[in-house]
């Protein structure tokens, strides 16, 4: 695989760029699970989003850890019925949890944030902290809420095609111009990811894998300017293409008569 080898062998800048490009491409192209014939995939996108939104709201309101756990169990069951492998689903969701909860949940366990019955006293860098029972409970509640809401959000994004997901936002009063702009951004993000990947390949084919740091910086700076200029040019061309097909600044959307038509 070209991508793998270049990720392993390239410089730090190249590795970072290609990793970002790879993430964008995966995020924009990954519709494998959305195309499967599972339970969630069979629901109309509007209903699906509304249901998930209500479930997320419930998870935020609930104060009972067991009930939130039940909601998380329901989310896992839905993933299972939607033909999403559980290990993949857990990896996809749980990877975000430490990031989100670390800086919020950990301070909450100490008495300075959550006063109450002291469970243990700890000393870090000469500072004494007291872990309280109430602190631990609120931290656990917070982590459980984050885990459940993130899982529900990931579930809906995995089981809905991006185009449908964006389109269904119209049902919730999101203006058509906003939906259209976001969907176009999404579509061209992929093109620019491919462009960046090609530029990296072109540089590598001419100057080799090892690029001196200073020269690498110049390449990056030059290509940022180059991509900026191409983006500008492309946006003008796309606007002309829209004008050519009758766009007058007022977006209209196609009504689907039958889903399977």
């Amino acid at each position, binding site marked *: 695989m070209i991508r793998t080898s270049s990720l392993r062998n390239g410089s730090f800048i190249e590795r970072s760029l290609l990793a970002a490009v790879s993430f964008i491409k995966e995020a924009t192209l990954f519709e494998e699970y959305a195309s499967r014939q599972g339970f969630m995939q069979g629901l109309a996108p509007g209903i699906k989003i509304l249901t998930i939104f209500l479930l997320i709201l419930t998870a935020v309101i609930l104060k009972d850890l067991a009930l939130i756990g039940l909601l998380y169990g329901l989310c896992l069951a839905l993933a299972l019925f939607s033909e999403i492998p559980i290990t993949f689903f857990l990896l996809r969701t749980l990877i975000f949890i430490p990031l989100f909860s670390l800086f919020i949940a950990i301070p909450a366990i100490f008495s300075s944030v959550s006063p109450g019955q002291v469970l243990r006293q700890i000393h870090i860098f000469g500072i004494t902290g007291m872990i309280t029972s109430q602190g631990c409970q609120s931290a656990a509640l917070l982590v459980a809420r984050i885990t459940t809401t993130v899982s529900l959000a990931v579930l809906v994004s995995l089981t809905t095609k991006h*185009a449908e997901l964006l389109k269904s936002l119209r049902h919730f009063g999101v203006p058509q111009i906003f939906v259209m702009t976001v969907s176009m951004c999404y579509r061209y993000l992929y*093109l620019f990811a491919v462009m960046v990947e090609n530029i990296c390949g072109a540089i590598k084919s001419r100057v080799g894998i090892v690029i001196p740091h200073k020269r690498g910086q110049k390449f990056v700076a030059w290509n940022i300017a180059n991509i900026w200029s191409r983006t500008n040019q492309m946006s003008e061309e*796309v606007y002309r*293409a829209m*004008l050519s097909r*009758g*766009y007058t600044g007022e977006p209209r959307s*196609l009504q689907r008569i039958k889903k399977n038509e």
Partner: protein
Amino acid sequence: MNNNIFELNNVHLSYLGRHPALCGVDMTIGSGEKIAIIGANGTGKSTLLHLLDGLVFPHQGQVKAFGQVLNEEFLRDEENSRAFRRKVGLVLQNADIQLFCPTVREDIAFGPLHLGFEQDEVQQRLKRASASLGVEHLLDRVPYQLSVGEKRKVAIASVLAIEPEVIILDEPTAGLDPATIRQVIDLILEANQRGKTIIMATHDLHLVEAVADKVYVFSQEKKIVRSGAMEEILYDMTFLQEHNLIHAHNHQHHHQVHSHPHQHFGHRHE
């Protein structure tokens, strides 16, 4: 009765006021004609097509479309703009620019929808255009996931759905495989038989031979250097070679080097 669709009179156009793109172009295009615009890279072919589609405007000279002066003021009027865009459709060279919607279905329907057709009519046009290009199976696909050939077919379908009187095509066969090229040629000819005017810019002389009945040749000076019947221009080897449309081909026979113009159209290989 004047049957002219486009009339260009001494048209000059430059980008940013200093990069000339067209320098004194005169041209008349009649209804139902099949026009090919040929010329080396950077001779102003694409600019001319954008001009005919009312996307750019001359700095000097005049463009008339359907008897009306085609300028910004004319197209600023919503009724004029809608009427003009219903009559003229442009297939761009870069399908990635043309296909900006989240799905193929929406891309094909974009034109009819924004030109004010009713939803039922839009659905009918979507059906007809996708069937004529054989892209029904791609309707729910995301455009950037398609192959080059599929993208090109969808781009053509997105213009055919408008059912315009004039179809303008910029390099319609670039990067396509032979079978798809044949399909595109048949489609253009079929559209012309139904009364559509065809205007295309291309480097593909096979396409010119198969489709066009009138050819305009652009030079590096960004103006028309010659125009005439397809046969008259296409079989003038010296002229084509002079304008970088065919190239000299060297090869060796028994230690002797031969040089001749290289072309494959017209079943002639001199």
